[in-house]
């Protein structure tokens, strides 16, 4: 008890020592010093904030992940990035027979969002990953016979993928009140080349999801859940905003969903990812994803150890969050005012806190460094009805087809540098921040209208602010 109290006091001290104005340095500044103090506004994630704006901005450990933690971080990083082969080697193999990616990093390059072959190739790509997932089922919310939750569009040599996904985009031209033209890319998806009997698309409910940035995973897992509950109680009827928690059922209990496009997972889904995305069985999911299909034969075995998965979980938790950039730019400062004027901050909540005790990994390792932090994810982690135009008719737990988790915006401004593109939203349909905002409907309608009615400079400033996060 005393120890915990002592820890809490220390972390409060850490926090306070960082959360001071840069102009009020405790020590007299040395004009020749090469070290500058970070201001509170730059510290996206308290002591987990990192100061790099390069391709590794999502893929760098927080400073506290040192010593043995850093060794495990490196191991986890390698397991996350290195493609798994199809051998029986428990360290490197086990991929398939069906899969969507060859490693976590194949779709989350540099812990970000690998550009999807939807955009590049019009659907399932060549090679062995496409950087998107397809959930599908019958109109009665049942799995199709001989299929599961996800359509696996890649397979090991000699096996047939479950199907191939296709997309066709229609450009929808629009004009803002000030005459600025923009276009929205409206997708239509369908599946061909089913491995078993053909399924008529009228009998398919499907949704396509591109990978999310793995920024701030540790902080999300350490969130003060009472704060999330209190955010759910805050309603803004004057703006039509009423976010709700997506209660999910995982590990045999009802939990608050925090991760995934619809907040439909409570953890970082390492074990599920290895099985469902890569076809690598593990102690939590010991049967191949394709088990039961006529084309799957042979003995089932565990293909990755729990220790290795824990290292991947640790890697994700220990990633630093990039600091904000350009905070002294007048345009960015003004853009923040516009962000608030458009009421974006009501859902993209600027400041949250983590639990005093931090987060615990799937192997029970506790990471107290994630505890007691003031963080700036720009999300409330609730799901909001964003209107039928953005909806996918695909409910998950109590998140309906039209409901989506507020995407945390931290680190988003660096996506172009990290992954070479600015595709956004759940299926990458938006090509930039402006388009992403213009897709906001339902509870985001008021914000979209306010943004639309701004003059060009105000809109550009708002976008510059979002890109500074």
């Amino acid at each position: 008890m005393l120890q915990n109290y002592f820890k809490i006091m220390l972390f409060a001290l850490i926090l306070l020592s960082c959360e001071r104005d840069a102009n009020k340095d405790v020590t007299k500044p040395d004009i020749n010093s090469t070290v500058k103090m970070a201001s509170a506004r730059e510290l996206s994630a308290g002591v987990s904030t990192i100061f790099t704006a390069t391709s590794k901005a999502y893929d760098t450990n927080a400073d506290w992940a040192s010593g043995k933690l850093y060794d495990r971080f490196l191991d986890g990083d390698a397991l996350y990035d290195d493609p798994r082969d199809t051998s029986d080697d428990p360290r490197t193999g086990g991929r398939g027979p069906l899969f969507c990616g060859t490693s976590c990093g194949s779709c989350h390059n540099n812990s970000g969002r690998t550009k999807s072959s939807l955009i590049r190739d019009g659907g399932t790509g060549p090679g062995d990953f496409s950087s998107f997932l397809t959930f599908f089922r019958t109109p009665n919310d049942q799995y199709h016979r001989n299929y599961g939750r996800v359509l696996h569009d890649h397979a090991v040599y000699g096996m047939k993928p479950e199907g191939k996904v296709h997309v066709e985009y229609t450009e929808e031209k629009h004009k803002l009140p000030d005459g600025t033209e923009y276009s929205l890319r409206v997708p239509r998806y369908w599946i061909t080349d089913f491995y078993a009997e053909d399924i008529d698309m009228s009998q398919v409910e499907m949704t396509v999801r591109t990978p999310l940035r793995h920024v701030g995973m540790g902080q999300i897992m350490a969130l003060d859940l009472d704060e999330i509950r209190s955010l759910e109680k805050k309603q803004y009827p004057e703006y039509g905003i009423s976010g709700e928690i997506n209660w999910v059922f995982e590990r045999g209990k009802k939990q608050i969903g925090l991760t995934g496009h619809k907040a439909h997972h409570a953890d970082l889904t390492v074990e599920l990812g290895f099985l469902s995305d890569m076809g690598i069985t593990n102690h939590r999911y010991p049967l191949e994803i394709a088990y039961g299909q006529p084309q799957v034969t042979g003995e089932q075995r565990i293909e990755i150890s729990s220790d290795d998965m824990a290292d991947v979980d640790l890697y994700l938790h220990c990633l630093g969050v990039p600091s904000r950039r350009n905070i002294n730019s007048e345009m960015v400062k003004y853009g923040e005012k516009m962000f608030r004027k458009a009421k974006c901050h009501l859902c993209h909540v600027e400041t949250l806190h983590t639990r005093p005790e931090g987060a615990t990994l799937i192997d029970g390792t506790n990471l107290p460094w994630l505890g007691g932090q003031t963080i700036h994810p720009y999300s409330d982690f609730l799901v909001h009805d964003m209107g039928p135009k953005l909806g996918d008719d695909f409910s998950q737990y109590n998140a309906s087809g039209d409901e989506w988790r507020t995407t945390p915006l931290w680190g988003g401004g660096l996506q172009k540098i990290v992954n070479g593109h600015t595709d956004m939203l759940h299926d990458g349909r938006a090509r930039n921040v402006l388009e992403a905002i213009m897709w906001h409907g339902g509870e985001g309608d008021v914000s979209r209208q306010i943004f639309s009615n701004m003059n060009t400079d105000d809109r550009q400033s708002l976008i510059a602010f979002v890109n500074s996060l």
Partner: protein
Amino acid sequence: MKKLIQLAFVALAIIATSCEKKDDTTLEQTNTDIYGGILDSYVNKTVIPTYKGMKDNSKDLLTKVKALQTNKTDANVVEACKAWQATRKYWEQSEAFLFGPADERNLDPYLDSWPLDLTQLEQVLASNETLSASNISDTKGAQLRGFHTIEYLMFRKGKARAAAEITAREMEYLSGVTEVLRNECVLLYSSWAGAEKGTNDAEILEGIDKSISVPYGPSFVKSGKVGGAYPIQVSAVDQILQGILDIADEVGNQKLGSPHKSGNPLDVESWYSWNSLLDFQDNVRSIKHSYIGGIDAKNTGASLSDIVKKKNPELDKKVLENIELAISKIGAIPSPFRNNLTANEVTVAMEQLNALNDIFTKEVRPIFVK
């Protein structure tokens, strides 16, 4: 109580380090000729010449493989192996700049995935399908193509395979997979440098239905200006440093470190050709070229080294000495690496790579990134 005191020290260390500001967020746009010069020579004297070397040699490699296909002699296998090594040298010397096109177009995994997926490769070779370049490109994953697939098909135990050992199916696959590698080397070079219409490169790109709308090289140089790859020059300079740190870390902790830790030769990259130690030395040369502003020491441009030398001549000397030490200590590991994983020289080389990493992290980077 002892634990609490330790915890207090840890916390104070965290306070000290987490509050250190090491980024460029409050720096005004420097837009200096000096940084502009560094970016220019980095692109035009280091990156593009390296990729040009790789691209030109990959064309020669394909010619040599086609000659081998036509005339399967031991001498022709040796020639093809030499061409592979010449191409590989440039790839390894590019590994300090695996950002931008290599990353965004997934070319790094396509060119250099390791380990190979031998299980699948054997199945592919045993099949009846046509093993053409277009088929490989469209249907085969990263672990069935690239340098290491070609290496496996041409080398054994550090030597060229006997021509008689190479089966007809292996030869067919070798030819297809080498063409795919050549195409990807051209794509990587052109992604930085562009491809002029009417050139052989442009024809190759057209053949694989690829186009380069905006080459990355000029936009990297333009960082800090409209249309630049990075919003401010300092971030682009930091990216050069990040590339250096990444490869120093990878050589020390993964390429040498992983097999040293596991004792498993299968973890060693390039072990069919026994090219591993050369690979690692070339990786360090990649660091050197990035630092001195060119691949030819007699023809360098503005560089990180210039600035460091101005600020602290001793540090510049230390960096250059430690780069050479890393190259020589890797060279001191008994060859082949796969048979000497636990040799003391491996530990010494790993320590040297970590020392180099530390110098760049703690002494060089703060000069550029406040």
